[in-house]
């Protein structure tokens, strides 16, 4: 072997040794890098708040992070022993998911219902990609738990449904209010004609019985119109402060006496001092309507109706789930029964006017609509809780305006009807109403001059203002409203008493400030209008007496 060959051999030996050392350097480096990457993976998968699993291509679990074990309720060991199809509520979904991954290479947003160790299920969306893990072709799947999202979505949908229902009822209310106004005009004519006919008949007349029946029917129609107006919040409200507990106690007493013996009633008042602003009669009606539904629900079975009155408060930061309520203090009137309950479909329609589950002829379907209308007109809201086979509870929230130890009971005014001989100017654009009312007033002894519109009546009044002792005018008339006409007349003669008649609700105008003495809602009886006239004339006399 010559020197050159030896040199080449030495060079090769050196190179082989160098390559061996290089191999050591590179493998050492790779080992460290591998270890670091594994650590990184474990930290990421253990820290991330999202369930993540790595499965073989056949679905067998190879790796699961802590969040996945927590959400499925398995220990790591048991989780990995689980048959993958057992994690799906519908085991066919497992196969579908794997096939989709195979076909598309990745899956985004696979909607599925997954099953936990305890057998309960939850909605989820799966996102998956192929990866190489520990030398195997695997699937990395991230599980997006949709439970909370679904809950929020359901809440949102429920609120939307309630809002739609509120809008629907408001629209119905507007329509019903218009119809009620027209019906009141018609009823005024019917009442007037019937009363006049009755006066013309002798006590022995056979027709008197029929007219009486017609008057009773007209009364029922008036009550129904009142209910419609209560529903659409277009009736005249008393709007005075009163302790609600007194009214509830009175109404509960009445319900106790009316309920059949198979039904037990219980009353719990936890809010004796709460004062609300509104109409005690309407609140009475709310409780009567709710209890009457409960009594019907409990027919032919032993049952319990619970009435609870309590004060509740909602803070400004509190999430209020009852539409229509804002932060504040309310009394909550709850009427619950252990009847058959209601399903979702009935609950959704429960407050719809004319909706009833009672057989034909047994219910008008207005009870709960009226409750809704009354509570809303008191600035509150109604909610209902019920499930088929479980108890039903209606909660009425009414704003509390004050608290006190005791309030005086509203005084009951006894109406006395007197005849008169004064001259009355009667104005209404409905000729039927003008005709009937003038006859009714004449039958009470008054001298009546009529006009069919504001300008004519005003012109007549201007000619001889002292001719009249009283003006009775319809509120809504074309060309010139009753209020405008009355204001003009009062400019001419400040002391002229004016009574306004209307078929709908009077707005909150300060009528007394513009000089209008009283307001009468159609339909009214001869007695009603007679009493209103006496009241207006009496006030005038009091004023004259004060002046003298």
């Amino acid at each position: 072997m010559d020197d050159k060959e030896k040199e080449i051999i030495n060079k090769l030996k050196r190179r082989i040794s160098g390559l061996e050392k290089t191999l050591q350097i590179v493998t050492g480096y790779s080992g460290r890098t591998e270890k670091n990457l594994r650590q990184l993976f474990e930290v990421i998968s253990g820290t991330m708040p999202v369930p993540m699993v790595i499965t073989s291509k056949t679905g067998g679990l190879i790796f699961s992070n802590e969040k996945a074990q927590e959400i499925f309720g398995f220990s790591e060991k048991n989780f990995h022993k689980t048959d993958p199809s057992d994690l799906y509520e519908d085991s066919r979904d497992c196969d579908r998911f794997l096939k989709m991954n195979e076909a598309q290479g990745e899956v985004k947003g696979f909607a599925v219902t997954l099953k936990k160790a305890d057998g309960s299920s939850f909605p989820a969306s799966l996102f998956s990609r192929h990866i190489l893990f520990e030398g195997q072709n695997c699937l990395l799947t991230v599980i997006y738990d949709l439970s909370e999202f679904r809950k929020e979505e359901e809440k949102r949908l429920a609120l939307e449904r309630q809002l739609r229902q509120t809008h629907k009822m408001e629209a119905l209310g507007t329509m019903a209010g218009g119809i009620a106004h027209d019906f009141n005009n018609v009823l005024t004519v019917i009442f007037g004609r019937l009363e006049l006919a009755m006066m013309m008949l002798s006590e022995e007349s056979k027709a008197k019985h029929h007219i009486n029946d017609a008057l009773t029917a007209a009364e029922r129609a008036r009550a129904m119109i009142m209910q419609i107006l209560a529903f659409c919040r277009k009736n005249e409200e008393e709007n005075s402060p009163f302790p609600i507990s007194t009214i509830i106690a009175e109404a509960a007493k009445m319900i106790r006496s009316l309920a059949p013996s198979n039904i037990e009633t219980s009353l719990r008042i936890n809010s004796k001092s709460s004062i609300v602003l509104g109409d005690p009669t309407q609140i009475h009606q709310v409780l009567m309507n709710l209890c009457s539904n409960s009594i019907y629900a409990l027919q032919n079975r032993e049952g319990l109706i619970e009435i609870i009155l309590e004060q509740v408060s909602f803070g400004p930061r509190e999430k209020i789930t009852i539409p229509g309520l804002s932060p504040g203090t309310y009394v909550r009137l709850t009427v619950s029964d252990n009847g058959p309950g209601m399903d979702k479909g009935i609950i959704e329609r429960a407050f719809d006017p004319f909706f009833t589950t009672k057989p034909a002829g047994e219910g008008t379907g207005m009870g709960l609509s009226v409750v809704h209308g009354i509570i809303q007109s008191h600035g509150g809201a109604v909610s209902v809780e019920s499930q088929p086979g479980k108890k039903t509870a209606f909660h009425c929230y009414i704003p509390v305006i004050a608290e006190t130890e005791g309030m005086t009971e509203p005084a009951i005014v006894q109406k006395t009807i007197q005849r008169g001989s004064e001259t009355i100017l009667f104005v209404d654009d409905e000729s039927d109403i003008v005709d009937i009312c003038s006859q009714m007033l004449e039958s009470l002894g008054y001298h009546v001059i009529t006009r069919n519109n504001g300008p004519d009546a005003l012109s007549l009044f201007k000619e001889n203002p002292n001719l009249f002792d009283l003006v009775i005018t319809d509120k809504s008339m074309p060309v010139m409203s009753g209020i405008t006409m009355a204001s003009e007349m009062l400019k001419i003669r400040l002391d002229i008493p004016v009574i306004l008649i209307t078929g709908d609700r009077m707005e909150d105008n300060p009528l007394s400030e513009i000089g209008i003495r009283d307001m009468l809602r159609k339909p009214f009886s001869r007695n009603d209008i007679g009493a209103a006239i006496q009241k207006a004339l009496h006030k005038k006399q009091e004023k004259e007496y004060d002046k003298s």
Partner: protein
Amino acid sequence: MNLEGDGYTITYKDNIITIFGKLSLMLEDYEELEDFFEEVIRTEPSEITLDIRNLEYLNSSGIKTICVSLILEADDIEDIQMKILCSNQYTWQKETIPTFEDLMDDMEIVFE
């Protein structure tokens, strides 16, 4: 002499090879770098400085390429002086570069 790739730049000037950026190519993609080092070695410099102070990351294939195509080839040049300038801020350099001393006698490794 320059070599530029996705995320890295390599220059050779005045016997100094400077590498910037990150090098994480597949083994077969280091061919260009091997050719670059071959060009450097062909000039038979008396000294070579490898400045990797701004080399943020180098994968195992890159380590192999530097070891075999630069250091072992340079070792064949008689009396050559090899110096590697490293940065203390990169852990991979601190862990790996000192092991390069086994490949060549009198190699100087400087950390700053």
